[in-house]
């Protein structure tokens, strides 16, 4: 019965949309790729928030490839002349669309609610274009996490590693004991995610900024970068032979099932652990990739607001306001594994790893070491990101040695600009 009601509502709503006449009910159309399981349920919180305010939600979910599918659909929609009200987006995609002049303006609601004061500056860099708010950030994921199976560490008498050498020694000990040292899924974005942390470990935030943000050829081919690639080879030696093409959550499952000791992955992996009934601190550990402590590499999901007809604008503003409301930020991020995009909300309701994440995020924002994740499109445009993927993956799969890889990296980045 419920399905029937819903589809009737949807049909009516769609008819109103296509007729383009005066809109009786305010509504937003939302393109996103949180299409299944917990994250879709989490987004439903927002939908219900808006419905309580009398704003209809036209759902436009397109899954696939971490948003690739949705971005293709978006292009079709913009070309057809009917952009959605709000689109889930990451990093440079937002700035690129803003540069095309396709995005709306949220300055009014941002000023009224004081977003400037509560959103970390590094994050504002992706939510504002030319000084104007164009999108509303939903969350902040941090990507330089290690997830460890505590049972294995206890069994082998290992402490939580705090330096790169200790980390390598721990992986070696696990490997010697018959476990997989490092659980990893061989997909370009996963390798690039590890690479982010490894670069910081090898050359500090200075190298990271110069190489990934300034795209400085000298930094990209520097000895420190060669060292980073060498460290990737070290990581590769602790990965099992079947890694290629494996989904990240299957790699997490290896840590959960006590087959592997560690996984380097963003905080979304936490959901897999919690879902398997594991408790942070007792069953699994979360800590920053050794060598990258004090730094937080992040990516933030945002809803970019498109230029829509005048009639849709009030609903759009209300949606932005609802996204930024502390209650939604907490409710959503509890499910998603990430932390709120505003630093002024209490993290009491989050689990131990989430609270640690929030504290570190605030500290990093303060210290200026909150850096956009290159692997997740928060350091440079898509063309460069993918060019870096190509080299990192090729090297990880043994096509280049470390020195060649650094040269190739500089060349590929230059060619992609």
């Amino acid at each position, binding site marked *: 019965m419920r399905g029937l009601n819903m589809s009737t509502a949807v049909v009516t709503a769609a008819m109103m949309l296509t007729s383009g006449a005066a809109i009786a009910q305010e509504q937003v159309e939302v393109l996103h790729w949180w299409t299944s399981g917990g994250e879709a349920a989490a987004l439903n919180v927002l939908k219900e928030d808006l419905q309580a305010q009398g704003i209809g939600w036209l759902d436009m979910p397109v899954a696939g*490839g971490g948003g*690739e599918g949705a*971005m*293709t659909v978006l*292009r079709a929609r*913009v*070309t057809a002349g009917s952009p959605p009200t709000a689109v889930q987006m990451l990093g440079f995609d937002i700035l*690129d*669309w803003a540069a*095309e002049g396709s995005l709306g303006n949220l300055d009014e609601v941002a000023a009224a609610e004081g977003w400037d004061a509560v959103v970390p500056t590094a994050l504002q860099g992706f939510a504002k274009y030319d000084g104007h708010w164009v999108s509303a950030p939903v969350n902040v994921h941090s990507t330089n996490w290690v997830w460890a199976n505590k049972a294995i560490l206890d069994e082998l008498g290992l402490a939580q590693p705090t330096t790169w050498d200790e980390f390598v020694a721990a992986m070696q000990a696990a490997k010697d004991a018959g476990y997989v040292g490092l659980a990893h899924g*061989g*997909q*370009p974005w996963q390798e690039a995610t590890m690479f982010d942390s490894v670069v910081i470990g090898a050359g500090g935030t200075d190298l990271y900024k110069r190489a990934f943000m300034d795209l400085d050829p000298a930094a990209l081919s520097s000895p420190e970068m060669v060292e980073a690639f060498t460290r990737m080879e070290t990581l590769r030696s602790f990965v*099992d*032979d*079947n*890694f*290629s*093409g*494996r989904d990240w959550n299957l790699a997490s499952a290896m840590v959960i099932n006590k087959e592997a000791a560690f996984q380097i992955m963003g905080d979304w992996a936490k959901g897999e652990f919690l879902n398997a009934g594991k408790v942070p601190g007792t069953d699994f550990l979360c800590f920053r990739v050794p060598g990258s402590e004090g730094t937080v590499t992040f990516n933030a999901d945002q809803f970019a607001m498109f230029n829509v007809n005048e009639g849709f604008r009030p609903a759009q503003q209300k949606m932005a306001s609802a996204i930024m409301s502390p209650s939604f930020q907490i409710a959503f991020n509890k499910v998603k594994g990430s932390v709120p995009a505003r630093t002024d909300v209490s993290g009491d309701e989050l689990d131990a790893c989430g609270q640690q994440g929030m504290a570190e995020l605030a500290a990093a924002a303060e210290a200026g070491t909150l850096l956009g994740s290159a692997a997740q499109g928060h350091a440079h*445009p*898509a*063309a460069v990101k*993918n060019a870096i993927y*190509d080299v990192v*993956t*090729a090297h*990880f*799969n*043994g*096509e280049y040695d470390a020195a060649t890889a650094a040269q190739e990296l500089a060349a590929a980045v230059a*060619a*992609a600009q």
Partner: protein
Amino acid sequence: MPIQSRQADLRTRLQDLIPKIVLAPSLAVVLIFVYGFIAFTVYLSMTDSKMLPSFDFIGLENFGRLFALPAWNTALVNLVIFATLYIAICTVIGLGLAILLDQKIRGEGVLRPIYLYPMALSFIVTGTAWKWFLDPGLGLENTMHLWGWTSFEFNWIKDRNMAIYTLVLAAVWQTSGFVMAMFLAGLRGIDNEILKAAQIDGASNVALYRRIVIPMLRPAFLSAFVILFHMAIKSYDLVIALTGGGPGRATELPATFMYSYTFTRNSMGIGAASAVIMLMTVAAIMIPYLYSELGAKKE
């Protein structure tokens, strides 16, 4: 009877027009939606389009950049390997199964749909199943190990040099049954009297097929080729579902290359250039084929 003939004339002329009127909509949509869009793509390939189409003309620069990309060359080589093996193996298996199935087999009614059904499924549906089956840790290799054959090894999908062959395997799985049906239909269409006459002349079974039956299947071979070639060129879902282009970029095909440059790398100009090269390749193979096929018909 002059009046009647004049009436007949008018009617003939009207009758002459009707077919063209009926054909016109089809022609119009093909001209606009196929050839118009091809023209648009050719134009895009000579612009500096990035995220959205732009109209700044830059000549042939994109083609130069395209061929400087190692991944594009990989994709081209992969397409040659993939298309050749895929078309050859599908044809051999399809023909073989059709011949075997044509031997007064009991249970044909059960076997035929089993051979045919993969064509009904897209790789969005079967992709995960294939991925698991091919994964050494989960699928065939693991199962063989559990059954006690511990030296068994099947890790192509993880191997940079072999992964392209797993694509061939899955693609053959999908289409060979369909090709079988085409050949089976061809075989059933052959007049039995011819075969009987040959057998009376003392021809062996092998000779019978090689000399008489297979040559008579020429039309089926050609239809199969058209279908298989078009599938090979368009293979996209297959790659995404099985390997995502990996390990590394070892299984990139032109279709995946084009999609990723156009839509995920925000390099629409280069993506369009690769599409133009693909279309030219198709044209280079199909136009001579169409010419000989359709030209021959006229006689």
